[in-house]
């Protein structure tokens, strides 16, 4: 089979390159924008996703995991007594002040537990033993803190809430949406440091269900026993934390807008280059019709051209986006591009390019083959 579509597409190399560049530009933009968006959102719920809890008890109307409010730590007893609960512990998430050796003050988001191991927190330890945390004025710090606090090492000291604490471990991948670095310490120490707010209080109760327990029933029972708290499943709580940032910052709208603009640019470039190409080859399309080609034959030519442009443009754009990942990582930005999302972008690119070819198709479908006999 001879492909007039492919031959014509490759015959005009400059226009072909422009078409591919247009698609690639759009694809890169969508990947980077959505990838950054997903990366930022991932930070908003990364601790929730990794902590090994089935249910989270929060104070009423807590909007996201970073903005915790206190309630009495003794509530955990009521949770433990609910049938179907295998384990329940207090988790404190609290914002504190950290003094740097330079004297500058920075914020830190403290995660405090009595038994870190039991809840898979922190989930990625680079150095140190979390079991040692209760043994003194110790804390773990996540490596991402380097950007805010400068370099640090295990064995050094930093002041948190005006108390000298020793860094006894480093973690990786613990992030907050606000980019406030995360520290890990024992519950009792955290309560001492923020005595006013945290004495006798906690901010969350983590719940692990017994095997075979009915999630809905346990949750309802906890809700009944703690009427002034909220209970969320892990997935709901992660979703709630993310949704807060999407709704309350510009990132949601910003992402939609750039994705829309990227798509618009891509579609317009493809539609225009395909259309100018079609106009230049109008006489050839007339010849195809004169020798008996049907509108389906014509559409096949245009569709083949737009699918080639879509697939090659997608490939180039995806390579660019993936290549941008490591650089973004260095800048402290996480770019998340999943295979699922890639597949959606590919299908979307092909469909939009086919739609863009319709402009040309309408023109050729209306073409009178009698023009082949005219000058």
């Amino acid at each position, binding site marked *: 089979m001879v492909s007039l579509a492919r031959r014509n597409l490759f015959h005009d190399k400059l226009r072909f390159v422009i078409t591919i560049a247009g698609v690639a530009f759009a694809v890169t933009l969508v990947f980077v924008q959505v990838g950054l968006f997903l990366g930022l959102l991932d930070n908003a719920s990364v601790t929730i996703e990794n902590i090994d809890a089935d249910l989270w008890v929060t104070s009423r109307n807590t909007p996201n995991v970073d903005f915790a409010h206190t309630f009495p730590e003794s509530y955990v007893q009521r949770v433990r007594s609910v049938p179907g609960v295998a384990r329940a512990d207090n988790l404190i998430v609290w914002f504190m002040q950290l003094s740097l050796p330079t004297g500058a003050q920075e914020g830190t988001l403290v995660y405090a537990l009595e038994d870190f191991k039991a809840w898979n927190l922190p989930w990625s330890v680079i150095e140190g033993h979390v079991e040692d945390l209760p043994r003194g004025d110790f804390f773990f710090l996540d490596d991402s803190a380097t950007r805010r606090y400068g370099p640090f090492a295990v064995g050094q000291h930093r002041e948190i809430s005006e108390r000298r604490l020793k860094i006894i471990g480093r973690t990786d991948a613990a992030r907050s949406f606000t980019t406030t670095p995360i520290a890990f310490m024992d519950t009792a120490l955290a309560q001492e440091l923020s005595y006013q707010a945290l004495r006798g209080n906690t901010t969350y109760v983590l719940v692990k269900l017994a095997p075979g327990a009915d999630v809905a029933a346990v949750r309802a029972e906890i809700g009944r026993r703690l009427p002034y708290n909220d209970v969320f499943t892990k997935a709901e709580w992660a979703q709630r934390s993310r949704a807060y940032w999407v709704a309350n910052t510009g990132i949601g709208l910003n992402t939609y807008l750039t994705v829309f603009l990227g798509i618009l640019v891509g579609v317009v470039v493809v539609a225009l280059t395909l259309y100018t190409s079609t106009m230049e080859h109008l006489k050839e399309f007339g010849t195809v019709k004169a*020798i008996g080609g049907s509108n389906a034959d014509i559409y096949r030519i245009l569709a083949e051209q737009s699918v080639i442009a879509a697939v090659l443009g997608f490939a180039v754009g995806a390579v660019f986006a993936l290549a941008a990942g490591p650089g973004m990582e260095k800048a402290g930005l996480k770019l998340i591009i999943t295979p699922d999302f890639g597949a959606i972008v590919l299908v979307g690119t092909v469909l939009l390019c086919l739609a863009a070819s319709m402009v040309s198709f309408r023109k050729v479908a209306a073409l009178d083959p009698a023009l082949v*006999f005219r000058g």
Partner: protein
Amino acid sequence: MTVLTSQNVVKRFTEGKQTVEVLKGVSLDASRGEIVALEGPSGSGKTTFLSILGCILTPTEGRVVVDGQEVDLSRPGDLPAIRRRSIGFVFQQFNLFPALSAVENVEYSLNVRGVKGSAARREAERVLDAVGLADRKAFLPRDLSGGQKQRVAIARALAGAPPLLLADEPTANLDSHAGRQVLELFRDLAKRENRALVIVTHDPIVRSIADRVAVIHDGLLAA
């Protein structure tokens, strides 16, 4: 055997409030192996008539039968199928596909006609050999002379064995030497392969190769 029958073909064009009757009742037949030259002054309606015979335009009135298939004026959607099956065209400006080589030009038109794969390639090579371009098969049209381009076009028209060949001023873009060569080749092949050939022309050489000359004048065939 008659391949083409046309009776009392009338064609009117309406442009706004003006209506012109370009063809006023023209009848023309052609049989297999027969070569008909269609002459007439500029604007007399030759191209219009050829387009109707080629099922590219529909007549306003009259009857056209190509290879046993009657053109149904109420079903213009059937025309492409008749063109695919039964008609090969040669145009004044060659109308080759610039991005396709000589053999691909022929092969592609066979693909459109429904002949696919290696059968199409073999037939394309056969007709290119027949028009004497065996050594130019891989050439793009821009690397061929005018006469060679028109020979590729003739090969394309012959390929797939349509019984009716229609050509509109096939020599107008060629010098008289190349024009004569192309016409003689065209005649020989049409005769050998037993096709009916209608050539619209101003070129006096065509008369010398035609079996019959029809002259159109002011929308009517001159006696």
